[in-house]
Structures are given as structure tokens and as C-alpha cells.
């Protein structure tokens, strides 16, 4: 649209040079065509005025004709029709002003709702462009007079150019509906149209409109809409344009009577031409295609439609919030479920934990974990301790054998066997069949105990070794000193309360292990039993 402006500036310059009435001559050929169109249009206008209600189907046709007419005008303008255009635009401007005025007046009429108003304006504009027949108000009379001068040539131009006025004409309505958004738009447009007496401003507008019209091949409303959209896409204009577009499209499909009136009246000029009809669907499609764009623009609008949309928006946001809350609740519940699940798993892992309380459950878990860690440490030490026990026991033997009163060797035998018992309790069915393979490396070691003494300290750190020695000492002491049936007596040497907790459990395992050992190795067990009986 912008690139048309320079042309029109040139036209404006030309206009100063040429008088208005010169314009007619160069355009005879085009005039002829235009005359045809105009004639048809005039008839159409007559018809439309008479039978407005019945003209629905013709609406699209009129638009097409308008579009067809417009190119002709363009040709004229582009070649040498500047003067003509200027004149035409002059007239057009007057008409526009009149339309604006009309529309303004109409806008101020309370009974008109939007659609009615737009339809009315369109109707007026079309009627004005059509000319004398309608001849409503004084202003229209002026337009009529003008038209009478140009009649034939100007009319198509008028049709083309007068279309746009509808859009400014509708602006007052916009202003009425939403004041702040549209005021500047109307102001600019009106100022453009009215401030300059010359054709330049009006021609610019007309050019913009024409260009839009040619592009879109649309009805005046569409022109206005496209124009507005192109220019004022950022402004709120889109909403009005959209409404107009919607109304037009609906009318194109024969909808409300008022809109029908609009369509018929404005395009009525072209009804005579049969050609346009087949382009109707295309137009409709275009219109429809445009609607989404408009809706996009609409979002920026302050119009009540937009307000409704905003309400919907707000509703959606609130719904979103509630949804987010739901999601949060759901995730929170999931988290709790997960924790509870883990708690249950933990409870199953902890032996004899009947606590349903979470806190006590965790307490138990902590205690059990500690005891397990201790046990593992102890056992790993015990594994190293077994070879190392022989020299170690010699050192600890006096303390160990303190209350025994029996031969140290017997106690050693006891000590060697008994400490094993608590360990298999974790593994009741310890497969002793694989003992040969696993114990392979240990067998020769025990054959030569003296060599092992230096090895073990190197393998285990001193502090842990000492600890393990002490623990194993305790074990040896308690378990070794007490016969299996006496081991129920709580051992004061156990620092870990959990070991007491496991105490009775241990005994059963111990008995099982004893039986196992006896079954598997009767010889050894017998040999051990014997010293025990000493």
C-alpha cells in the first residue's frame, strides 16, 4: 500500500497542472467499458434499492465486478489517467466525506446496532455511488450531482473508491464503541480525507483501498477490513474489521436480512454482469481465510468480543491454575505413595518390625542398619581374623579362658567352632559342599599358621583389626564360653543392642548350624564334641 503513495503524490502534482474536466478525453475506451459496467450497475442499483431483500445471491457477484472494475481504473491511472483519477478522487472524496458524515449521523442513532449500522453505511455508500436513484440526504444529493457530471466513467471508480469510505464511515461507530482505540485511527483517516482539498489524500486512500480491493477482490467491507488490517494491524481496528468480515461472509451465504441489504445494496451495481458469479466461492474462501487473521488481531482488541475472549482466557488461566494445583496434588500424592511404598519395603527388610509408625519404623531401620553395618564389618574382620586368631587367641587367651577353668585347647576348639554359628544364622542352609573350592586357599594357610600372622595385619588396618579383634573376642568369649543352650542368657559384652535383639533368633540358627555341621562332618563334630565333654 505504501508504494502507491508516491504515485499519488505525482498525481497530486499533475492535478495542479490539469483542470478537472480534461480528464474525460483520454479515457474514451475505458469509459466505454466502464459505461457498460456502470449501466449494469445502475440497473443493479435500481434493483437493489427496490428489491434489497431479494438480492442475496448477487452480493458476491457485485464484489467481483467491483474488483474487475478496479483494475481498469488502475490501468487508467497508470498510463495517463492521473487527471481523471484526480477528478474522480475529488468527487470520491466528497462522497467519502458525505459517507463519513452519514455514518456519523447514523452512529449517533441509538437504535442501530453494529451490524445494522454497518449495513446501513454500506447501503448508503453503495447508494451514493450508485447515484441519483437513491438520493437520500443532502450530501448524497451532492454526490449525485457529482456523479451526474461523470456519470459513466466515474461510477466504477466511485464504486471502487467509494467502497473504502465505508471503512472510515464505520470508524465513527468504532469510536463510539471503543473510544480510545479507534479515535486516532478515525482521526487520521478523516484528516487524510478531509484535510487536503486536493485529490492526493483521497487518492492515496483510494489507492490503498484499490490495491487492497484488487488483491482481495472483496466487497467494500472486506476492503475496509483488509485496508484496516494492513494499516492498523497493531491497532484494535481488526476487531471491527473482523465483525464486518464476518457479517459479509454470512451475508454472502445469505444470512441476516440487514446484512443482506448491505451486500445487495453495495454490490448491486455489478449484478448485471454474469461473469463475477463464478468467482463467488473463491471470494468466500478468501474471506474465510481472512477471518482467522482477523481473529489474531482481535486478541489485541479491547472490543467486547475481545473481552469475551479475555474472559475465556481468564477462565482458561484459572482452569490452568486449578489444573496445575491438581497436578501438584497428584505429584505430592505420588511422592507420598512412593515414600510409603519404600517404607513398606523397608519394613519387610527389617526383621520383626511391627511398628506401623513411620518414625519408629525409621528408628528401627536406622538401628538395624547400624547393626548390619557392624555385623558386616565384624564378619569381614572375622574372615581375616580366623587365620589371625591363632596368634591373637594366644594373646587374649588368658582373658578368654578366665572363667572357663578348662584346657585352653578345648576352649580353642570351642572358640573355633562357635563363632561360626552366629554367622551362618544369616545363611541357614550354607552350602558346605562348595567348601573345598572356597576354602582351597585357606587350607594350606592353616597348615602353616606361623606364616599367616604377618599377612593378616598387612591386609587389614590396625584400628579396624583391633576393633574386629575385640568384637570377635567378645564373640568368642561369649559364644565360646557358653554352651549352646546357655547362650540365651543375654550377653553383657554386646555393645550393640541390636545383637541382643537378634539373640534368641541366633540361638535357633545356632542349633540348626550345629546340627548341620554334625551331619555333614560327623568326624570333626565328634572330635569337637569330645573336647567339649572334657
Amino acid at each position, binding site marked *: 500500500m505504501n508504494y502507491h503513495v508516491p504515485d499519488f503524490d505525482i498525481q497530486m502534482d499533475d492535478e495542479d497542472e490539469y483542470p478537472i474536466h480534461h480528464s474525460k478525453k483520454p479515457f474514451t475506451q475505458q469509459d466505454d467499458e466502464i459505461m457498460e459496467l456502470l449501466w449494469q450497475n445502475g440497473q443493479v442499483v435500481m434493483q437493489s434499492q427496490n428489491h434489497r431483500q431479494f438480492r442475496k445471491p448477487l452480493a458476491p457477484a457485485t464484489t467481483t465486478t467491483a474488483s474487475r472494475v478496479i483494475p481498469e481504473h488502475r490501468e487508467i491511472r497508470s498510463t495517463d489517467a492521473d487527471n481523471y483519477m484526480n477528478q474522480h478522487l475529488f468527487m470520491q472524496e466528497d462522497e467519502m466525506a458525505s459517507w463519513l458524515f452519514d455514518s456519523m449521523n447514523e452512529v449517533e442513532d441509538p437504535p442501530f446496532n453494529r451490524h445494522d449500522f454497518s449495513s446501513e453505511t454500506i447501503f448508503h455508500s453503495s447508494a451514493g455511488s450508485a447515484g441519483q436513484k437513491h438520493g437520500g440526504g443532502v450530501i448524497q444529493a451532492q454526490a449525485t450531482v457529482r456523479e451526474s457530471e461523470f456519470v459513466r466513467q466515474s461510477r466504477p471508480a466511485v464504486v471502487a473508491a467509494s467502497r473504502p469510505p465505508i471503512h472510515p464511515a464505520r470508524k465513527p461507530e468504532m469510536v463510539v464503541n471503543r473510544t480510545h482505540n479507534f479515535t486516532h485511527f478515525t482521526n487520521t483517516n478523516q484528516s487524510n480525507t478531509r484535510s487536503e482539498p486536493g485529490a492526493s489524500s483521497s487518492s492515496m486512500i483510494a489507492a490503498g483501498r484499490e490495491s487492497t480491493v484488487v488483491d482481495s477482490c472483496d466487497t467494500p467491507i472486506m476492503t475496509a477490513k483488509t485496508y484496516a488490517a494492513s494499516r492498523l494491524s497493531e491497532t484494535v481496528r481488526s476487531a471491527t474489521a473482523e465483525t464486518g468480515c464476518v457479517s459479509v461472509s454470512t451475508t454472502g451465504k445469505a444470512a441476516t436480512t440487514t446484512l443482506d441489504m448491505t451486500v445487495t445494496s453495495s454490490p448491486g451495481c455489478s449484478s448485471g454482469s454474469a461473469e463475477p458469479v463464478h468467482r463467488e466461492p473463491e471470494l468466500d474462501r478468501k474471506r474465510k481465510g481472512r477471518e482467522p487473521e482477523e481473529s489474531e488481531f482481535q486478541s489485541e482488541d479491547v472490543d467486547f468480543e475481545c473481552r469475551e475472549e479475555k474472559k475465556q482466557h481468564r477462565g482458561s488461566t484459572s482452569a490452568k491454575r486449578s489444573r496445575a494445583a491438581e497436578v501438584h496434588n497428584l505429584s505430592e500424592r505420588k*511422592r507420598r505413595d*512412593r*515414600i510409603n511404598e*519404600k*517404607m513398606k*519395603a*523397608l519394613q519387610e*527388610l*527389617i526383621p520383626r518390625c511391627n511398628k506401623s509408625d*513411620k*518414625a519408629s519404623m*525409621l528408628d528401627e*531401620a*536406622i538401628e538395624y*542398619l*547400624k547393626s*548390619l*553395618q557392624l*555385623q*558386616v564389618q565384624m*564378619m*569381614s574382620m*572375622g*574372615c581375616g581374623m*580366623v587365620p589371625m586368631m*591363632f596368634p591373637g*587367641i*594366644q594373646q587374649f*587367651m588368658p582373658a578368654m579362658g578366665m572363667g572357663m577353668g578348662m584346657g*585352653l*585347647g578345648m576352649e*580353642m*576348639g570351642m572358640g*573355633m*567352632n562357635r*563363632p*561360626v554359628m552366629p*554367622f*551362618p*544364622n*544369616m*545363611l541357614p542352609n*550354607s*552350602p*558346605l559342599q*562348595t*567348601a573345598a573350592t*572356597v*576354602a582351597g586357599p*585357606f*587350607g594350606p594357610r*592353616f*597348615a602353616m*599358621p606361623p606364616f599367616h600372622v604377618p599377612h593378616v595385619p598387612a591386609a587389614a588396618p590396625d584400628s579396624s583389626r583391633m576393633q574386629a579383634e575385640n568384637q570377635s573376642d567378645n564373640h568368642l568369649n561369649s559364644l565360646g564360653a557358653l554352651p549352646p543352650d546357655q547362650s540365651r542368657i543375654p550377653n553383657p559384652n554386646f555393645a550393640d543392642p541390636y545383637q541382643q535383639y537378634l539373640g534368641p533368633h541366633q540361638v535357633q540358627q545356632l542349633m540348626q*548350624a550345629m546340627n548341620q*555341621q554334625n551331619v555333614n*562332618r560327623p*568326624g*570333626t563334630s565328634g*572330635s569337637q564334641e569330645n573336647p567339649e565333654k572334657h
Partner: protein
Amino acid sequence: MSSRRSRSRQTSSSRNITDDQIHDLVSKLQQLLPEIRNRSSDKVSASRVLQETCNYIRNLNREVDDLSERLSELLATTDTAQAAIIRNLLMQ
């Protein structure tokens, strides 16, 4: 809405004690877990701590089983050595 909120606040206040307790316990538990002991306690969720606890307990149990098996085998094979041990002891 408000009533629900207040109710939830009340329940949460009563629950907060145990929540704090449980938080302490979970952090204690976390200290026992070598897997996540070194991590900052804030970043480990309770469920993760519990999961790790379960895994760790299973690991410990397995380890205990292995060790007990090893020990039993080890001590089972000491039969032949026992004479030497006893001899050793008796020699002292």
C-alpha cells in the same frame, strides 16, 4: 476453601512434628548410607533415602550372607588345621 485451608493447617501443624522427626530420622539414615552420605542432605528426597536404605540393607544382608558362608567354610576347613592349632596352643 478457607475452612479447608485452616483445617489443612491444623492437620499440618500436628503432622509437622512427626514430619520433623521423620526428617531428622531420614537425615540420620542418610548418614548411614555410603551411597548418599556425602551429598547435601537438602537435595536428597526422602523417598530416595528410603530407597537407598532398602538397597543398602539388601546389600548388607547379601554381604553378611557371603561373609558368613565364607567364615563357615573357612572354619570348616580348619579341621585339618585344628590339630596344628591345638598343638600350637598346647605347646605354649
